[in-house]
Structures are given as C-alpha cells and as structure tokens.
C-alpha cells in the first residue's frame, strides 16, 4: 500500500448520515438499562423460558400436569403444599401453570415459526419475481386475509376436531398471510435498490439475490412484527382452548385451565385466577418486548393491525 496514506481517512466516528446502530452486545445492555419497560419484559420472558425448561425440577407435583388426579385434595385453597391451591381434580395449580408455559408459550413459538416459514418465502417470491406470480400468490393470501383470524381458526378446528395440534395448525393458517403480505411489501420496495441491481450485474442468480441480498435487508420489520404477534398468538391459543377447541384435559394449557375454573370464579377463584394471570403476564411481556425491539430495529414504527 503505497498511496493509501493520502486517501485513508481517520477511522474515527463517521459522519452519521444514516446512523445504523452498531451491533455491540455491550451497547444493548446499556440500551436495556435506559428502558425499564423493556428490561422488565426481558426479565419476565427470561423467567418464563427458565420456568419452561426447569418445570420438572420446580414443580412440586410434576405428575399433576399430566394425567394424575387426587380426588382426596380437590379445590384446596392456596397455601401449604399447594402455593396456588388445587383444581377440581385435586391437581396442583402451580405445577400446572408452570408446565403450562411449555404448552402456551412453546406452542405459540412454534406457530409463529411455522407462519414465518410459510409467509416469508411466499412474500419473498411474490415481491422479488413480481408480475403474474406476484398476482397469483397475493390473491391466495387475500383469500386467507378475508377471514377474521379467530373465525378462520374456529372453522378449521371445528372441521379437524378439537386438539392442541389442530388449534396450532388453525392459528398458523390464519397467521402466515400477514407475514407473506408484509414480506412482499418489503421485498418489492427493495427490489429496485441499486445494490440488488448491482448483485444481478455481478452474475448472481436471481434466487441467490433474493436470499442473500433482499431477504437480509428486509427481514428486520418482520422479526419485530413476529415478536409482537407472539402475544396475540398466546391469546388466540388461550381463547380457542377456552372455547373447547384447543388443548384438551389433562393438558395444562392456560386457556383451558381458566375455562375449568370459570364456574368457580366466586367460590374457588384461584383455579382460574393463576392461569389467567399467567396469560396476561406472558402476553404483556411479549408485547413490551416487541415494542422495544421495534424501537430499535424498525424505527419507522409500522403496524398493521
């Protein structure tokens, strides 16, 4: 390098024209500290994840999350060996709420992942290829979007029969079109960018341009949306189970547990109260986390619902 010196610029801070955030882990900790809401949400999510993983260790009566029943200890109030009391079958509510994380949050994560796995490729193809392919794919998406998501989920579970798996399929079926539509918009907006053209000019095949150059530059807002949607899926999932169309007894699903305590609200409120609170806390935590992520990853703050 002979002539580098006269061209080289000081590697100090650059004129921040578009100010992309530096991805330093340390700065993220500082960022969290300045946003107590996000910090609380992240803590709750961390506790939920730990609870899900450690449920067999933490639950005093792991069997109660399964098919165990204890008809000599039904509807015991909170206290003693049963911190959250027992339900109508004598099962420890605390153990069931704890194992419920695996069901309610776990299945919701799977549903979101499945929706992304279908929606993102469909949207990417539609947005990148354009033309007739775009038209056909988006009309299919429109058909799915025309139904209110809970109604579509109801129709699917009613047809397939009520079960945890069918409820998950039903929610994913009503959720992926949103990602397809959003991804299509992002991809179509980026398709005309100079770097996409430059990639084609380099002899890169079209599918590879889509995967390597369009996708990484458009996925951010969709990840944000997915994290916000997690709360919605948890609620939808609980609603389906509450209506008897989702998880079936003895699965420790929160919505189902609320339903089982529904008639006992005024006499033995703990049966419905604790799983209900769990739904609320989980949904709130994921919403706050999603909002925080959006502030960081997608400052434009686009929402769709």
């Amino acid at each position, binding site marked *: *390098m*002979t002539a580098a010196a006269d061209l*080289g*610029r000081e590697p100090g801070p650059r004129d921040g024209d578009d100010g992309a955030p530096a991805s330093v882990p340390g700065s993220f900790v500082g960022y969290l500290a300045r946003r107590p809401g996000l910090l609380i949400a992240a803590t709750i999510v961390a506790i939920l994840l730990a609870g899900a993983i450690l449920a067999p260790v933490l639950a005093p009566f792991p069997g109660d999350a399964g098919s165990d029943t204890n008809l000599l200890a039904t509807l015991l109030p909170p206290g003693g060996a049963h911190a959250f009391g027992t339900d109508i079958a004598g099962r420890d509510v605390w153990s069931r709420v704890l194992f419920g994380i695996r069901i309610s949050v776990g299945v919701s994560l799977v549903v979101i992942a499945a929706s992304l796995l279908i929606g993102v490729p469909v949207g990417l193809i539609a947005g990148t290829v354009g033309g007739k392919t775009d038209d056909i794919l988006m009309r299919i998406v429109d058909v799915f979007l025309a139904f209110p998501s809970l109604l579509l989920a109801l129709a699917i579970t009613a047809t397939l029969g009520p079960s945890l798996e069918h409820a998950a399929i039903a929610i994913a079926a009503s959720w992926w079109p949103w990602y397809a539509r959003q991804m299509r918009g992002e991809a179509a907006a980026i398709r005309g*960018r100079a*770097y996409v053209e*430059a990639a084609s000019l*380099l002899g*890169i095949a079209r599918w590879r341009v889509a995967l390597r150059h369009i996708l*990484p530059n458009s996925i951010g807002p969709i990840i944000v949306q997915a994290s916000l949607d997690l709360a919605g899926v948890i609620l939808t999932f609980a609603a389906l189970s509450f209506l008897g169309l989702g998880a079936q007894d003895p699965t420790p699903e929160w919505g189902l547990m609320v339903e089982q305590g529904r008639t006992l609200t005024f006499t033995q409120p703990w049966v419905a109260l604790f799983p209900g609170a769990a739904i609320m806390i989980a949904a709130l935590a994921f919403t706050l986390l999603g909002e925080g992520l959006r502030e960081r990853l997608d400052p434009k703050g686009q929402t769709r619902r």
Partner: protein
Amino acid sequence: MSEDTPLLSIRDLAIEIRGRRLVDVADLTVARGEIVGLVGESGAGKSLLLSSIIGLLPADATVLGSITFDGIELRGAPDRLLRQVRGRRIAVVLQAARAALTPTLRAGAWIERALVLHRVPAAERRARVAHALDAVRLDPALMSRYPHQLSGGEAQRVAVALAVALRAELVLADEATSALDVTVQAEVAELFRDLRAREGTSFLIVSHDLALVAGLADRIDIIADGSIVERGGPSVLSDPHHQVTHDLVAANPTLERVREAAL
C-alpha cells in the same frame, strides 16, 4: 481472438419496448485496452444499451442485432452463460456507489462472495484482493466496514476493486462519477486510466459529463434518440458538427463560459 478484433462489438442493435424502438445502433466497438465514451442526454438510450450488453433488459424488451464479446454472441445467450460473463468478464460500475453495495455485507465480504461465486480458488483469493486493493489504492482496513461507513469515493473504489479482483476485461461505467464530488470524480477518472495502463482493462464510459469523457476517452460516440449521431476523438467535443453534440457542449458550463457570463 486476434489482437485487432474488438473486445466488444455491437452490430445493427435495435431495442424495442412495447413496439417503440428506443435504441438503434449500427455499430459500436471497444478494442482491448481502449476507453470509449458514450455521451448523450438522459433518455437517449445509454443505459438501455449498457443493460443489453449484459442481457439485463426489462422482460418486455425485444433485442435485434448482434452483441459479441471476445467472439461470444451475447444477444439471446442462455442465462447461465450470461451469468458467467457478468461481473467476471464484464463488470458494471454504477452511479450510486454506496447504494450499490449490499448494506448488510461488509465491503470485504461483498468482494469475497463475488469471488466465490465466480469460482476463484480459495488459494488465489487473498492475493487477488490484495492486488486489487493496491490497484485502486484502497486501504485494506476499509474491508471490514459496512457500506454506510464508507465515503462515496471509497465505495466506488470497492466496486472497481471487485472488477480488478475478478480480472474483468471490460468495465461498463454507467454515470460512475456523476454522484461524486468533483475531486473524487477526478480520482475515479485517474483510477480508470491507471487500470487501463496496469491491467489492460477496456472501458465503455457512459456519461453526460463531457469534461470527464473528454479527458478520459480515446474515442467518443454521441448518442441521441437511441442512435449514434457523431463520433470521433476527444476533439468532437471541441469541434462539434451535429446539433445534438453542439447542444450538449453548450449545456455544459465550462470555466471559460462561466467567466464570460460573469463579465
């Protein structure tokens, strides 16, 4: 190919989009090691002509005639063949230097990936990149930067460095300096001249910047309404015969004319 056969040869090229003939060029050649300027107003068909060379025209465009590169007919060539030529043998340098780099890739990774794509052996890559960076006088430290951390001139050098690393024989520069500061424009022009001398690279420079083209090109073709209306050495700009050339020259303020106007 013998030495006197042009590297790029365009014959009777016609490009039509929805029945409208937008480009109609009887012949245009670029010899090995030659710098040819293609000058015209916006909408004259310059960019369309460039796109047709590498086979990246809009889907509804019809192309007639012949485009040969080193004896290979590129018009209507299968996509697989065109992809091997794009970047690898014919490089394109765009106007928006920084915007032409993928924002999620560091400059070094961008170059590296293109070398992998064009099957440059791993053992050769490092040496080629080092040589290319030296050729475009770019600090290797900049390779770890993202596009938004580069200046426009640096980004343009990255793009040209890739062309050098891939040993492209022909560089198509599409308004490659128009978005840059005047001083940086001069640097890029110098870079092109230098590359021709060091690597024997040929250039087809498309621009409306007459000063740049006059100072750089061996031959200049003036294009208007899709056809070449005048051609010659750099002197065509100082002694224009065709009205279009005359208008182009008149529309470009020179220091002398600015001084005249001020007096």
